[in-house]
């Protein structure tokens, strides 16, 4: 295997420069590698940062995009740097919706309503406004929005990716286990 380190350094520089979550597609194009290879590079950089105790940085990742952030363990310095405007308190309805979206996302509102037994439109709107979830048009069905948690959600939870949620795999497929009829 050829030496990947220059590509990995380029990847880190891109994330450092851009600051916000950078789509994997863009990264692949900019550093001139295939998307599958790009995922690998992200993995190498992530574990290199994680294992380097001198480094205060880490990778956030959701499959589509990557962001460079500070490690959650460095609470004392983090406290001094974080502005009050980033404070987000959760209501019970917000917590409930976020939990289901975190594990099952991307999901349409209908599925969320079905599981919660309530109409979630205002809760979703509030979470969107606060940047804790994102919506995008469903790949399968036009005019249907799907919701998933955002990178900011990961930052409040201190998680590197959604897969780090406990029992993620168990919950991910929960709907199929209960013989739920066709919803959304």
């Amino acid at each position, binding site marked *: 295997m050829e030496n990947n380190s220059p590509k990995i350094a380029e990847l880190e520089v891109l994330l450092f420069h851009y*600051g916000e979550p950078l789509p994997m597609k863009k990264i692949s194009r900019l550093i001139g590698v295939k998307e599958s290879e790009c995922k690998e590079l992200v993995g190498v950089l992530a574990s290199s940062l994680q294992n380097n105790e001198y480094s205060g940085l880490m990778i956030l990742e959701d499959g589509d995009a990557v962001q460079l952030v500070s490690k959650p363990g460095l609470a004392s310095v983090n406290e001094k740097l974080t502005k009050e405007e980033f404070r987000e308190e959760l209501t019970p309805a917000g917590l409930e919706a*976020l939990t289901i979206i975190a594990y099952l996302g991307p999901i349409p509102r209908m599925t969320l309503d079905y*599981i919660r*037994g309530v109409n979630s439109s205002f809760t979703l709107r509030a979470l969107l406004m606060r940047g804790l979830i994102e919506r995008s048009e469903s790949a399968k069905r036009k005019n249907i929005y799907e919701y998933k948690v955002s990178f900011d959600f*990961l930052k409040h939870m201190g998680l590197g990716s959604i897969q780090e949620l*406990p029992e993620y795999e168990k919950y991910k497929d929960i709907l199929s286990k*209960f013989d739920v009829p066709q919803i959304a």
Partner: protein
Amino acid sequence: MSYELTLPHYAGPLDKLLELIEEKKMEITEISLAVVTADFLDYLRKLEGEHLDPILVTDFLVIASKLVLIKSRALLPSLEISEDEELDIKNLEARLKIYAEFKLAKDYLRKNWSDMPKMSSRVLFMSLGPSFYPPSNLKKDDFVNILATITNELQRIFKPVEIVKTEIINLKKKIEEIIQKLTSKPTIFKDLAEKGSRNELVVIFLAILHLIKDQLINVEQAKNFHEITIVKKEKVG
């Protein structure tokens, strides 16, 4: 926003249902759902009394109507129900089980959530200063189109809430009607359903369960598969 802001301490209908079943130390089954129906309706009436967000009350009523269907079948095994309604009953069971599963996950999120983010990131292009890059895909006329879309969407979202869907008839009115119809002589239950639609039957049942709670009437069912008769209770004293 009212849902989020005015009701932070109110649980949703499934939450309440689960709580009632757990109080009775029962598993989630059609039987246990029938058992807690009256308690659920009682709670719903309390909610209504507090003049809460109509959306929340509607959410409770939707679940209530499914419960009453379950209760109806438990009381009246001869009651014929459609495939859709059968599915509805099975669904409610499944939904409640899924909801129960998510309770643990919810606890995890609650415990690990930090109001302040635990990680920080940099803003977009932190090291660059602003320059001028005008879009070429924006013409003056586009403004009005964009604004029309936004205002339509806003009006759709913030329109006055339809309090209860047409399917769900106003409970209190129905209760009054039933009381008026009730004479001291026994009335056949099905005579109460004017149009005889399933939904109306369900609502009447709901109303009757209220009345049972109020101890205004007695429900008598001579035998399984027999029709229920309703007698207005004589006021004592």
